[in-house]
């Protein structure tokens, strides 16, 4: 009986349904998704928000609510997939909500048909939601109100435009939004510490390369390349005053030395483990320096001086920075890539790395417990969180969220610390900042025009008279551009300045051509982008856009920048 494997727990129905996504964000990501409640504030043709929700309902977001006061019209049926003929004249919020709910019985959905003005006027109207998505057009004072709420309550806010062939979205995240599980590419992130080996690793390598020259050929061809490199580094040091190869030239010399040491008098004419060693020289023989972003993190005031209510992230970050100060390296991640080796040698090598990683983790954990006592934290941080931090320490990302631009009719926009870089990038070929400026002009135009001239529903440029609206909106866009250049304190010379103006003018013209219309393809594509970012933000995995993304469906290009 003893060698019978344990009985198999096949996957549950839920695991089967979500199999293809669980392979990306795992059960913790899935749980985060299921605990979210998303509000969509919908308006205009209203497609991009619904397409976004579609991609969130399918993977199983917990709860969604659609606020939309529009009544289903003929035009909706030509662009929105989640409405049918029998819904004509009914509430768009209600019917889109119901058809979306059909996609996944595990998801709860709700709708609000009340106009956005009165909905927002109620106290605590936004309280139930963890994340809010606003689809343009919306009156600027209402957007400003939601934005202020997001700032005060650390709620994540997305603002989307989808107009004709173009789209834009901006994300307003809390000022400190850390991501531990960034899913870096495993190929580029292996950390073997070959230039800073520890006693156990040195011992292991020495043992495996003891009689390298006299080894039987089968043994020689199975020495793990990590051991080979450590061995030849020792040989190199003897001839180089105890120095490791540092420069590119030295490394290529070292690589040639390893290459020459391979045995070629065999039927294959070479050895795979030596090939692997040679291939690893340039990428593995680097001092294990943390990235600029991680060093930056350690210098952050929130990390240096832990507040009494510091979050787990900052407490662990502080503990890891103590480790870094003491040893000059980050805790060892502990994973070893696959390599030509005998099974038992490889498992031993894995264990050498794993035990060192566990030792480093224990030390960081001690510091965490000490810090917790210092700030009188009542609930201890879970060990698995500290472990995840140590494993990913080199690739941790901190996004500094901030409010995006909210245009107010007739007011000059303030760009602050992003003015310089935006103004500089304005004139780059393929820059999409001119298109962002056109979208800001779109918002200012709609803020100044409403359908009934009573301050109600905004009117999009080009709905009825494209020529007149193009002229007006171009004027607005040029002013936004000039104000930006002025605030940046730079001067853009011709022909660059005229060229940037031409681009802005063309983008305005193409936006006005749509007359506020959504094209289904662009709404779908943008809904894909936004839902992907919502998932990243909700699961706190991967790296979200910081903080503005533009899609140009004429050239089929995206651009990302910070405003």
């Amino acid at each position: 009986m003893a060698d019978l494997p344990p009985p198999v727990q096949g996957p549950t129905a839920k695991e089967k349904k979500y199999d293809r996504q669980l392979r990306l964000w795992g059960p913790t990501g899935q749980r985060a998704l299921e605990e979210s409640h998303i509000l969509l504030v919908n308006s205009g043709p209203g497609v991009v928000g619904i397409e976004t929700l579609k991609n969130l309902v399918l993977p199983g977001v917990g709860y969604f609510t659609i606020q939309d006061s529009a009544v289903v019209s003929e035009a909706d049926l030509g662009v929105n997939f989640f409405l049918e003929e029998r819904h004509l004249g009914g509430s768009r919020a209600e019917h889109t909500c119901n058809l979306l709910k059909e996609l996944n019985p595990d998801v709860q959905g709700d709708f609000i048909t009340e106009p956005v003005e009165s909905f927002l006027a109620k106290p605590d109207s936004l309280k139930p939601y963890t994340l809010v998505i606003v689809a343009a057009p919306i009156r600027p004072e209402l957007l400003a109100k939601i934005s202020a709420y997001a700032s005060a309550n650390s709620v994540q806010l997305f603002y989307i435009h989808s107009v004709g062939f173009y789209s834009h979205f901006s994300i307003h995240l809390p000022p400190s939004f850390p991501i531990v599980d960034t899913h870096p590419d495993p190929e580029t992130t292996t950390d073997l510490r070959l230039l800073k080996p520890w006693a156990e690793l040195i011992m292991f390598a020495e043992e495996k390369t003891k009689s390298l020259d006299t080894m039987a050929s089968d043994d020689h061809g199975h020495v793990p390349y990590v051991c080979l490199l450590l061995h030849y580094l020792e040989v190199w040091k003897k001839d180089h005053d105890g120095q490791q190869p540092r420069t590119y030239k030295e490394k290529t010399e070292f690589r040639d030395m390893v290459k020459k040491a391979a045995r070629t008098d065999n039927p294959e004419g070479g050895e795979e483990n030596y090939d692997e060693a040679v291939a690893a020289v340039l990428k593995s023989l680097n001092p294990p320096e943390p990235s600029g972003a991680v060093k930056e993190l350690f210098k952050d005031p929130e990390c240096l001086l832990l507040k009494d209510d510091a979050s787990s992230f900052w407490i662990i970050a502080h503990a890891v920075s103590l480790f870094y100060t003491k040893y000059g390296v980050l805790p060892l991640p502990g994973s070893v890539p696959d390599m030509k080796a005998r099974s038992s040698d490889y498992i031993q090598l894995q264990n050498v790395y794993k035990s060192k990683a566990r030792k480093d983790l224990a030390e960081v954990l001690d510091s965490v417990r000490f810090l917790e006592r210092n700030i009188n934290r009542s609930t201890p941080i879970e060990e698995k969180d500290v472990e995840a931090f140590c494993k990913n320490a080199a690739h941790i990302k901190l996004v500094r969220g901030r409010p995006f631009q909210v245009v107010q009719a007739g007011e000059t926009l303030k760009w602050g610390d992003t003015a310089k870089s935006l103004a500089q990038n304005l004139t780059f070929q393929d820059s999409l900042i001119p298109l962002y400026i056109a979208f800001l002009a779109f918002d200012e135009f709609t803020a100044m025009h409403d359908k009934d001239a009573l301050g109600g529903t905004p009117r999009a440029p080009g709905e009825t008279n494209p020529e007149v609206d193009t002229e007006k909106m171009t004027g607005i866009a040029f002013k936004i551009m000039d104000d930006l250049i002025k605030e940046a304190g730079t001067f853009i010379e011709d022909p660059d300045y005229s060229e940037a103006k031409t681009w802005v003018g063309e983008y305005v013209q193409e936006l006005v051509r749509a007359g506020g219309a959504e094209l289904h393809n662009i709404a779908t594509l943008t809904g894909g982008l936004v839902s992907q970012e919502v998932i990243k933000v909700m699961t706190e995995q991967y790296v979200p856009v910081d903080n503005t993304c533009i899609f140009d469906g004429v050239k089929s290009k995206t651009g990302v920048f910070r405003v």
Partner: protein
Amino acid sequence: MDEAPAASLPNGSDGQRTRWKYLDNILNRLGPFTDPDWEHGEAAIEGLSRAKILVIGAGGLGCEILKSLALSGFQDIHVIDMDTIDVSNLNRQFLFRQADVGKYKAEVAANFVEKRVKGAKITPYCGKIQDKDEEYYMQFAIIVCGLDSIEARRWINATLVGMVDEQNPDSMKPLIDGGTEGFKGQARVIFPTMTSCIECQLDMHAPRAAVPLCTLATIPRQPQHCIEWAHIIAWEEERKDITLDNDDPEHITWLYQKALKRAQEFNIPGVTYSMTQGVVKNIIPAIASTNAIVAASCCNEAFKLATNTNPFLGFPETDNYMMYTGDESIYTYTFQHMKKSDCPVCGDDSIARPLQIDSNFTLQEFLDSLAERPESQLKKPTIRTEEKSLYYQFPPDLRQQTQPNLSKKIYELVENGEEVAITDPAFPLQFKYKLIFKD
């Protein structure tokens, strides 16, 4: 209850194009990037509603493509897919419900979209693309592919390139192809014979390297090695008479238990049921978001191509490929992939593509390597030089005759620089290579 309109008219209950109000803004107006001579308005609308378009694949991409084409004003849409619906499709293939599991994808998808978008006619075919001949493909104006198989893409690509008749401009069918993997994907537009084709771009999609058999058999190190061992070796040894069915839970469970036991013998941690399934079925992660992005990009290009409402990807000498990455922020790279003159499909017939090989390889080893090499990816090659037949997969008597060559070294069979012709039952053409000895 809502009151139903008097009649179900495709354009709107009043018979006017009120339903297409948004689309018509674009179709009726010139823009800064449209050709000044572009026939906008009536002519563009007419062209769009008449264009017959083929969608290959009704899976994650296909569902999105069908929906987006119907809502872009295409009214004569055909769709081909041979698959049936599985429960693991439901997290993204939004035209299918739990009750549809087991039914044909093409049929369910076509019915759903036809019902939802009035006026769109969608004709499904539940079968293989290889069932159809040139005459069938000739009826379409544009072909959009949402496939997960490289082999099927190469087949349709080769077929469309082969159909081009210089005397007949209608024989050139633009091919728009989308693909995704997790948070990544691509959309590309191909004008067969005029611009870079799928075969020219083959090395952009290199297959995953297979683990050597000796590693599986004697020195496993990773949990995946134990699973592959159970899959390739143990099953063959112990359950030879049962055909392995990747979708049979009993079979996967058997492999999982075998793999787990082997892993325990070698002290290798990490074998799970989910990993077993992933390795055996070669599962690629897939989510709704990426499918939406890539499919919509394909449909955006199809719409621009059919209407000239704006410049499209793929016009000769311009960008034809958009690469998308969404795991770290959002990044796209849109560029012109250059046509290759030695492309075995669309290149000059007289040029053989150079292939570096180790002349110490046996013919068998060389043929095995063709499956993995990014620039060939051929699984069942038949090979001959101008003078002699080196190895034939069929018919059986030719195979028997050429079998002894498999264990011979390459240098015993061909000269350095000699040309060989390779055919594979998966493709309707022959590949010409010039073998260059590495040593």
